[in-house]
């Protein structure tokens, strides 16, 4: 390491630039190789999550997606993506919505929620939710995803441990959306996960937005998805 001024200063800068350039080139190469597998893995993951929240036998069509508000950027905080699910006869049997809330303990949380019994706003059922993306504290906030990869039959009944229970098979019209500590939570309130009230509130917020969207625009969505089904 020669330390002679002034050419050593120039050399110092040049070396940093060269190292940075080599690293950038290496990263560009790795990025190119991994781009497609990452995109495919994400697609599969989204589809699997959506499929989980609608009733069995209801097949989600990723291509039939609607964006609300219309024409919005898919990554934006207020954007909701709505996916139709069709049964074997091609009838609309479920709707899955991906919504987002940025008020988690570590910011962004993405949740998909599934709806069935689409006859009317009174019968509309929240089938199940699934948290697809979050950065909550491991072991605390991350418990909002506890057991979500398992079948609901294994969930037990303790809402303070398994957050998904709050949103399993519920009539949308009766949910209060009030998030309370589990001891104080009523039947129609949302019981927060122990020691993770902020994370619980963020997830409930995202689901509430999605549920009210489906409930308020139920007829519009049904009409839009019925026509997509016919045109295919």
């Amino acid at each position, binding site marked *: 390491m020669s330390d002679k001024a002034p050419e050593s200063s120039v050399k110092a800068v040049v070396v*940093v630039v060269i190292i940075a350039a080599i*690293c950038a080139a*290496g990263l560009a190469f790795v990025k190119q190789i991994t781009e497609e597998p990452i995109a495919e893995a994400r697609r599969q*993951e989204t589809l699997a999550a959506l499929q989980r929240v609608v009733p069995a036998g209801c097949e989600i069509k990723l291509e039939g997606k609607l964006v609300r508000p219309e024409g919005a950027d898919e990554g934006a905080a207020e954007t909701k993506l709505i996916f139709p699910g069709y049964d074997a006869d091609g009838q609309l049997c479920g709707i899955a919505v991906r919504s987002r809330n940025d008020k988690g303990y570590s910011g962004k949380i993405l949740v998909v929620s599934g709806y069935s019994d689409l006859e009317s706003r009174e019968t509309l059922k929240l089938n199940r939710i699934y948290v697809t993306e979050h*950065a909550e504290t491991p072991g605390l906030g991350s418990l909002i995803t506890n057991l979500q990869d398992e079948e609901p039959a294994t969930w037990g009944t303790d809402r303070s441990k398994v957050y998904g229970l709050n949103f399993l098979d519920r009539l949308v019209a009766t949910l209060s959306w009030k998030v309370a500590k589990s001891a104080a939570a009523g039947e129609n309130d949302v019981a927060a996960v*122990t020691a993770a009230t902020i994370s619980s509130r963020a997830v409930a917020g995202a689901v509430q937005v999605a549920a009210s969207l489906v409930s308020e625009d139920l007829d519009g969505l049904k009409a839009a998805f019925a026509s997509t089904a016919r045109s295919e």
Partner: protein
Amino acid sequence: MSNISELTKGLWKENPVLRLLLGMCPALAVTTAVEYAVGMGLSATFVLLSSNVVVASLRNIIPAKTRLPCFIVIIATFVTIVDLVLNGFAHDIHKSLGIFIPLIVVNCVILGRAEAFASKRPVFDSFLDGLGMGLGFTLALVALASVREILGNGTWLGMSLTGGEFTPVLLFVLPPGAFISLGFLLAGMNVIEKRRQANG
């Protein structure tokens, strides 16, 4: 023989977390469960190993004045490579480790070893140093996480140990529990080290 000691010193005598007190942030943050400790430890070991080797092989080229930016660029590159490769080819692992990987860039164990060791020593010694320090970091994290997961959740690596006989002390999973557990671990290390010195 000296090569062996480059490898083993990281495990106990110069354990990065428990003796050098480096990398406290990940050690406190991710040790709520043993599973996370292992994941974080192994990812950091890979980055530490790679950056040590590259820094050691470039040690005669990297100018003294701008060595820190060089180290950071090299470390950040390896971290990003780990992130992309795991995401593309081991998506499930990436899903559970995803939030820790970017943290490795600012893990001062890695920058510290680049600065204090790899920038002055031959490539092979640096390789051993990186491996030893990485494993020492992993061991320390697993030790801390074991205490916290067993006391705070009643499980070890997700397996129930207590069969519901014992009510877990939630405090140990919360941030104060990290500091308390770490304090006792450090005290224990000091006691053992003092005894060893007294006997030796």
